[in-house]
């Protein structure tokens, strides 16, 4: 590992510390490495003497009486959706590597480890097929509500997009796998554990859950909130796997380690997922607008003395549920930014 990479990695792990404290301790390490190189040692050797950077970061945080796990959680909460996906991708590879390492240690034959890794990889990728298929069929069910020609066209586009994403994931996982086999790089156990915690909350399934909410009636609001909570857990539980890519921002990123490649890839994947979710949300928003109009019309009819109180109440319920879903999805996707798609909400209040 080169000096800058080491410092970036450490900086990321110490993100919970304030700027001054962090640069303070980092400058000590930076100076230490400089001194060692001045004495004729290589950067790599000087850094290798420090041992595992994750362990080092833990010791530093311990000196501040900060629980490293909590620190990580707090830091991760600020992260964007893209970052979260990026973390998952690299955390996933870390977990695979670690699991296989533990298994292969007993046989102490590297080849066994590699075979186990490959089998694990294939199993996980096949499992990933399930949420992908679920998402495709759910979107198919939703788009049948649209006029036939439009619905099927949108369906084809979405199915293609989802499958393209899946293929990219598979290719990337295989690429990382073989790269790791070649490098036999180090991966932290912690990352793996955290990743496993977050694993049930794959982004695919999240969007799937959203769609289910659209289909089921009364509990929507409740679902919306659990989903929000889950997102929080997810983000705090997400591993900080993308080690090379420091989120600190105060130190320039350099080098093309597989970790920062994972970050870049994850970011792209995150954007693609966002686009897919936004496309899927379009009919939901349309239904929302229709229900708002229906609500307005039924209120007007009730005022004029027609006996449509029941219809009005149904329209009210549907409207609220849809607004809750739309709000939850866009809040999860765009964080604090106000999504323009929230306009149905404004419409509801005016009517």
């Amino acid at each position: 590992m080169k000096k800058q990479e080491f410092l970036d990695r450490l900086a990321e792990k110490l993100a919970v510390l304030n700027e001054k404290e962090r640069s303070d301790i980092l400058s000590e390490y930076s100076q230490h490495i400089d001194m060692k190189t001045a004495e004729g040692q290589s950067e790599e050797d000087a850094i290798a003497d420090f041992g595992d950077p994750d362990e080092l970061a833990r010791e530093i945080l311990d000196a501040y009486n900060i629980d490293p796990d909590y620190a990580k959680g707090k830091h991760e909460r600020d992260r964007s959706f893209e970052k979260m996906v990026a973390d998952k991708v690299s955390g996933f590879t870390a977990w695979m590597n670690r699991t296989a390492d533990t298994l292969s240690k007993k046989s102490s034959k590297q080849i066994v480890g590699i075979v186990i890794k490959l089998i694990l990889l294939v199993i996980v990728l096949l499992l990933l097929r399930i949420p992908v298929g679920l998402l495709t069929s759910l979107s198919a069910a939703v788009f049948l509500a649209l006029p036939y020609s439009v619905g099927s066209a949108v369906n084809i586009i979405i199915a293609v997009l989802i499958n393209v994403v899946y293929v990219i994931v598979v290719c990337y996982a295989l690429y990382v796998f073989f790269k790791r086999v070649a490098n036999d790089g180090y991966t932290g156990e912690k990352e793996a554990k955290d990743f496993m915690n977050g694993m049930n909350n794959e982004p695919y399934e999240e969007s799937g859950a959203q769609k289910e909410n659209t289909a089921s009636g009364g509990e929507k609001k409740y679902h919306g909130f659990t989903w929000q909570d889950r997102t929080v857990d997810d983000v705090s539980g997400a591993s900080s796997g993308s080690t090379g890519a420091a989120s600190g921002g105060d130190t320039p990123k350099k080098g093309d380690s597989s970790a920062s490649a994972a970050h870049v890839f994850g970011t792209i994947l995150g954007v693609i997922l966002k686009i897919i979710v936004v496309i899927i949300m379009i009919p939901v928003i349309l239904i929302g607008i229709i229900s708002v109009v229906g609500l307005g019309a039924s209120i007007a009819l009730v005022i004029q003395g027609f006996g449509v109180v029941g219809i009005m109440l149904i329209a009210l319920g549907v409207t609220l549920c849809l607004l809750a879903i739309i709000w939850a999805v866009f809040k999860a996707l765009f964080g604090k930014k106000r999504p323009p798609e929230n306009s149905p909400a404004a419409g509801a209040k005016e009517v």
Partner: protein
Amino acid sequence: MNTQFKKGVLELVVLMSLSKKDMYGYELVSEVSKIIDVNEGTIYPLLKRLTNERYFDTYLKESSEGPPRKYYHLTALGREYKDDLKKEWLKFHRKVDEFIKSDV
């Protein structure tokens, strides 16, 4: 040598080293690692902790080569703490030593 042994004594060695003269991080780390063969990276967190507990003061001083260095200085509180720790260590050492020798 057992790492737990080392960790326990490390603090005392750091305090003792600094009681002779003020030192900057790398100097102190090299000094300490001459006595205890320890992962040098783990000494910096210790310096940080002892500084946070007000046993050390720090100040910057220009150096002829490279950026200014941060020097560590043992405070009065640190000196007191060092004396206590040293007494504890000697007592502990004596007892263990006696016990080990009685075994022979």
